C-alpha cells in the first residue's frame, strides 16, 4: 500500500465519520431576520422573540428535534440557506414563484395582506379601497382596478418599501412611474423615515404595520388601502428549505398541518398580531 492510498483512505474515513455524526444529531438551525416585528424581532434582552420564534419552538417539538433560531440579515437570507449556513428559514417569507425557483417551501403557516402606512393628516389617509380585500390570483381585474384607484393619490409621492420583499416587487410592477419608490434594508428604517417625513407612505405587510401602529410615536398614523394578496404577493408565508431537502420539508409540512388543526397557529397569531392569520383552505 503506497502513501497516497493510505492518505486518501484516512481522509475518506474522516469524511465518513463526520457525515454520520451529522446525521445522528437532530439539531435544526432556523434563520430569522430578527427585525420584522411582530413576526420576529430582537427583544429588549437581546433575545429573538415573536410569532415565528414561538411557532418554531412548537413545530420543533412536534418534529421531535432540537432547534436553534439564529438571526440573519434579510437580503442574504436565501443565498445563505443554499450555502448551508442553516437548514430552514422562518422569517415572514412569502411563498412566491421567484423564490420557488431557488428554494422549496413548507406550509404556508400564515397569510397576511399588504397595506399602506400613512399619516392621518396626509391626503393619502383617504385612500380608496380601505377595508376591501382582493386577490391578484383569483380576482386579478378587480384587484388591478383597486390598485389603479390608489395610484391617482400616490402620483408624485414617495413610497418606502423593504428591499428584496414581495412589497418591493409589487412597487416595481405597479408603482413605478407613478410614485418615487425608495428601498430600505429593514422595515424599522422605512418607519423611521416616514416619521421623519422623508417619505409619504410605507408599503408593507398589514401585520407589520399593525405592529408599528402599536408604538406611541405612530399614534397619528393609520393603515389604509385595500388588502391585496396573491399573484406576485405570493401565497402565504412558509418555511424555506433547500431544494432536495424533501424529508425536512415533509416534516415541517406535517408539523404545520397539525399546528393549524389544533389551533396553535391561531393562538400564537392572536397573541402577536391581534388578528388571525391562519391560512384558509
Amino acid at each position: 500500500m503506497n502513501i497516497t492510498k493510505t492518505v486518501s483512505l484516512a481522509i475518506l474515513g474522516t469524511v465518513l465519520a463526520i457525515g454520520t455524526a451529522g446525521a445522528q444529531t437532530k439539531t435544526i438551525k432556523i434563520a430569522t431576520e430578527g427585525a420584522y416585528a411582530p413576526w420576529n424581532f430582537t427583544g429588549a434582552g437581546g433575545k429573538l422573540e415573536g410569532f415565528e420564534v414561538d411557532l418554531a419552538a412548537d413545530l420543533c417539538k412536534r418534529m421531535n428535534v432540537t432547534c436553534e433560531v439564529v438571526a440573519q440579515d434579510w437580503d442574504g437570507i436565501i443565498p445563505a440557506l443554499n450555502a448551508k449556513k442553516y437548514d430552514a428559514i422562518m422569517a415572514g417569507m412569502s411563498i412566491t414563484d421567484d423564490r420557488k425557483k431557488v428554494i422549496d417551501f413548507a406550509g404556508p403557516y400564515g397569510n397576511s395582506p399588504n397595506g399602506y402606512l400613512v399619516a392621518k393628516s396626509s391626503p393619502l389617509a383617504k385612500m380608496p379601497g380601505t377595508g376591501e380585500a382582493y386577490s391578484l390570483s383569483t380576482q386579478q381585474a378587480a384587484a388591478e382596478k383597486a390598485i389603479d384607484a390608489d395610484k391617482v393619490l400616490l402620483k408624485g409621492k414617495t413610497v418606502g418599501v423593504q428591499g428584496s420583499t414581495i412589497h418591493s416587487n409589487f412597487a416595481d410592477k405597479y408603482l413605478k412611474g407613478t410614485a418615487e419608490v425608495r428601498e430600505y434594508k429593514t422595515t424599522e428604517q422605512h418607519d423611521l423615515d416616514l416619521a421623519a417625513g422623508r417619505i409619504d407612505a410605507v408599503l408593507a405587510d398589514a401585520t407589520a404595520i399593525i405592529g408599528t401602529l402599536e408604538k406611541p410615536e405612530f399614534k397619528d398614523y393609520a393603515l389604509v388601502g385595500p388588502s391585496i394578496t396573491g399573484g406576485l404577493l405570493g401565497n402565504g408565508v412558509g418555511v424555506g428549505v433547500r431544494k432536495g431537502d424533501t424529508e425536512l420539508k415533509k416534516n415541517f409540512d406535517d408539523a404545520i398541518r397539525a399546528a393549524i388543526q389544533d389551533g396553535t397557529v391561531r393562538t400564537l397569531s392572536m397573541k402577536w398580531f391581534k388578528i388571525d392569520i391562519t391560512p384558509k383552505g
Partner: protein
Amino acid sequence: MDFAFMRDTFWTLLSGVPLTLNLAFTAVALGAVLAMLIALMRMSGVAVLDWLARGYVFVFRGSPLLVQIFLIYYGLGQFRPTLQEWGLWGFFREPYWCAIFALTLNTAAYASEIIRGGLQSVPAQQVEAARACGMSGFLLFRRIIFPIAVRQALPAYGSELILMVKATSLASIITMMEVTGLAAKLISQTFRAVEVFVVAGLIYLVLNFIITRIIMALEWWLSPHLRRPPEVTLPVEAAHV
C-alpha cells in the same frame, strides 16, 4: 458561472456608476476645501483652532463611516422640527445630500492629515531660499510651499480618493441606488450573490484602476525634477573623427 447572466448584470450595474462617481468626486472636492481649512487651523499655532481641528479629526477618523451615515440620516431625521426652524430640513430631507454630507465630513478628516503631512514635509532650505529671494506671506505659500506640499501629498491623496470611491457603497443603506445598491437589488431578484458581487467588484476595480492611472500621470507631470533628462545625442561630425 453563467456568462450571459454576468453580461446582463454588468449593464444593469453600469447604470449605477454615474451616481457612485458623483458621490465620490463631489465629496472629495468639498472635502478637500474643508481639509485645507482644518490643516491650516491645526498648524495655525492658535491653541483654540488647533484643538478644534484635533477634536474634529479625532471624531471623524475614529468612528466608522457607517455609523456616521446612520447618525446623519436617521439620527438627524428625528429632529425635523428643529431643523425646519433653522431652514436646514430641505437639505437633510434628501438622502443624496445626507450621503454627500457624511462622506465630505469623513474624507475631510483624513485629507486634513494628509495635507498637514505634505505642508510639513516642505524642506526648510527651500523656504529659506524663497525668503532670500524676497518672497513672503501668501506669495511664498502660493509659489513654493503649496506646490511642493501637493506633490508630496499626492500619493496618499490618491489612496484617499480610491477609499472614497469604495466608501460610496455605504450610501446604499440610505436608499441611494449606486453600484452596490443595484447589486443588492439584483441579488434579491435572482438570488445569485456570487455572480452579481463578482461583477460589482470588477466594476470598482476598473474604476479604481483608471483613477490610479490618472493620479500617476498627475504625479509624473508634477515631478519633472525626478525624471531622467532626455538623453542628448550629440551630432557626430565626420570631419573630426
